[in-house]
């Protein structure tokens, strides 16, 4: 028997430390309330341990620590009999530490390291059940796709360092404030590439749903509350370096608009609860990016926190359901209202928050996102007015679709006739209760704009009514089929999305079969040829070597003489 509670205690210690550290920072509300004045420039890629916790960083840290703690508690029941529990639990703690490093640090290289460690942890956790082929495939896909995005972050960091002469985030802020944003477009687009990968936005969205074979608590932790959120957070954190750049903001708006609607539609037609929730995450992340594109980073972070709470709730609830039913297929569910009462009530709150029903926190933060996009249509932000209008329309349509799929999932899971009796282990239900309470409690004191609230509620109710009307019927075939196939964006990714992703996806596949043979296979032909040629000269005959040296001497002499 593996002793499980020490890991919970360890997580709790970290969480308490985070709380003690972060709570005093919460007093300011605005992300940009902090005006940096002085910064010590560090030119070399040093790894200073400086931290800078802003109010919104504190929120994200508290969210991460809280959800991690609950997940750890939950896992004692969910994963209790797993023989690799020890590495699982420790990886979760490592993951939290990396997340905190990303959120709290003031040094871009520490940020990069934390970012990479998160990627590796998530790889290992998704692939926790590596005996299953789809687990391995999903894990490898997540690693390779996010790593592709990570290249963007690495290059962005170097560009920032070269532009502002420092690798301190605060230092770069000061630089951008003093001399104006330089190379904003380049930096912004590079960071965008990174976060698009990490937060699973179009066109690098495919890894997140495929990561679902991982343990469900991990899904709740990584793919709802922390890792994907880190993408949003980092983009907001570095915003002062490119926030005025129209190109970057427009690109962000386009990415988020496309992603939010597309992912919501995918969620609407899923027959798998967990996968539907995964697409829902992608869609909600796009909301956060939309808020940032509209120039309201703090609104985006608020939605991040609220989404973290209710999506963790939903995933953990989904875990209870899967634990009871034994599968995540919606067809196997139904009638769980009476057999899993605690799960039913808490998940109802979760779905309400997802659909944006008052008085849950999801309602308020989503409304603020809509409100901020509305403000952006006045044309006072770097986002062009037309783009903002389009984004606003898409966002409202997405509200409709979101409410519809939330209702649909809720109905299919809980309504109907009970099948047989199930059990809810207490250590799995009380994290749900805690999160359910949080979903309601966090809405206390949130501001309310009546016009937006009325409109969005109307739209959401329409969506719910739509779902009630359709019941569990699929959409009409011509709509249903391509959406259920996720527009084919995943499989023959080859035709729709530019070269980079293709190679990555293919290589990921090959890599999975061969261990890691990534590059040798990627560049097999050229490398193979040259490599053979180089090695063909290694005949073992000394005089051939000496000849090579002599020829080489001639060549370099020619280089020297000609270059002169």
């Amino acid at each position, binding site marked *: 028997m593996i002793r499980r509670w020490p890991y919970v205690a360890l997580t709790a210690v970290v969480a308490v430390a985070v709380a003690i550290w972060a709570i005093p920072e919460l007093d300011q509300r605005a992300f940009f309330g902090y005006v940096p004045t002085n910064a010590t420039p560090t030119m070399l890629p040093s790894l200073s341990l400086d931290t800078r916790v802003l109010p919104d960083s504190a929120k994200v840290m508290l969210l991460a620590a809280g959800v991690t703690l609950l997940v750890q508690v939950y896992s004692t029941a969910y994963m209790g009999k797993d023989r690799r529990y020890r590495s699982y639990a420790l990886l979760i703690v490592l993951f939290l530490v990396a997340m905190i490093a990303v959120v709290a640090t003031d040094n871009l290289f520490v940020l990069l390291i934390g970012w990479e460690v998160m990627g590796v942890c998530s790889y290992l956790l998704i692939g926790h059940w590596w005996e299953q082929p789809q687990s391995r495939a999903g894990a490898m896909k997540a690693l390779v796709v996010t790593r592709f995005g990570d290249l963007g972050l690495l290059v962005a960091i170097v560009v920032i360092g070269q532009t502002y002469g420092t690798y301190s985030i605060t230092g770069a802020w000061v630089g951008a404030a003093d001399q104006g944003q330089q190379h904003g477009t380049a930096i912004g687009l590079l960071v965008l590439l990174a976060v698009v990968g990490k937060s699973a936005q179009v066109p690098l969205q495919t890894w997140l749903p495929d990561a679902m074979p991982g343990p469900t608590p991990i899904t709740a932790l990584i793919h709802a509350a922390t890792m994907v959120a880190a993408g949003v957070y980092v983009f907001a954190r570095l915003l002062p370096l490119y926030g005025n750049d129209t190109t970057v903001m427009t690109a962000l708006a386009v990415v988020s608009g496309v992603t939010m609607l597309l992912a919501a539609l995918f969620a609407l037609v899923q027959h798998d609860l967990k996968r539907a929730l995964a697409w829902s995450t992608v869609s909600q992340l796009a909301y956060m990016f939309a808020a940032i594109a509209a120039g309201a980073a703090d609104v985006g972070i608020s939605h991040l926190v609220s989404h973290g709470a209710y999506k963790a709730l939903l995933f953990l609830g989904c875990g209870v359901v899967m634990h009871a039913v034994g599968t995540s297929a919606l067809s196997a569910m139904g009638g769980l209202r009476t057999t899993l009462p605690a799960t039913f009530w808490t998940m109802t709150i979760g779905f309400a928050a997802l659909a944006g029903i008052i008085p849950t926190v999801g309602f308020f933060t989503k409304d603020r996102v809509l409100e901020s996009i509305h403000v952006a249509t006045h044309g006072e932000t770097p986002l062009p007015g037309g783009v903002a209008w389009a984004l606003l329309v898409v966002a409202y349509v997405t509200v409709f679709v979101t409410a519809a799929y939330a209702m649909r999932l809720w109905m299919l899971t809980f309504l109907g006739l009970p099948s047989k009796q199930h059990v809810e282990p207490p250590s799995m239900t009380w994290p749900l209760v805690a999160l359910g309470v949080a979903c309601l409690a966090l809405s206390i004191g949130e501001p309310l704009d009546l016009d937006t609230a009325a409109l969005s509620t109307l739209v959401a109710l329409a969506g719910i009514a739509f779902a009630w009307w359709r019941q569990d019927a699929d959409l009409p075939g011509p709509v249903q089929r391509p959406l259920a196939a996720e527009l084919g964006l995943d499989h023959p990714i080859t035709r729709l999305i530019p070269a980079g992703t293709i190679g990555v996806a293919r290589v990921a596949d090959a890599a999975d079969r061969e261990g890691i043979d990534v590059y040798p296979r990627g560049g097999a032909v050229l490398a193979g040829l040259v490599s053979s040629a180089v090695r063909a000269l290694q005949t073992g*005959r000394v*005089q*051939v070597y000496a*000849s090579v040296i*002599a*020829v080489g001497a*001639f060549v370099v*002499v020619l280089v020297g003489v000609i270059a002169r």
Partner: protein
Amino acid sequence: MSLPEAVFLILSAVAVASAVLAVGSHQLVHAALWLVVTLGAVAGCFVLMTAELLAWVQVLVYVGAVVVLVVFALMLTRSPTGSQSAEVTRNRPLAAVLGLLATVGLAATVIAGFRHERITGRLPGTAASIGDALFREWVLAFEVLSVVLLAALVAAIVISRSGSENR
């Protein structure tokens, strides 16, 4: 053309011819002996270029020691008179091209750089003057050289002992 020049040219011709024979001869011992001729001719050139001490060193070290070693090695490793049909490797065409290129390239270089210069020979390199320079300016190099010789000695001993079983 002065007498030293004429002598130098003759020595040069001898050196080149014997060098060609040294690398070309099929009789290995003959090749070693042709090497002696080349080295002797070079020693003669040294004398003509004011390097008296070096000429003596050349004769003593090379002719007296190195060539003897070479001949010994030849005798120890194969039958001294047996000529072999293929005394060269398959690498020969490439080697010929490279050798020719080296000669032409170096010749072109020195012709480009020094075609108008003449040696007047004002300052002979006697044992005294070389010794003076050696111990005034090049002491460190000299000391290092002594370590090189010692290390090479030990290295040669330990390597040549290799393969014998009686260690």
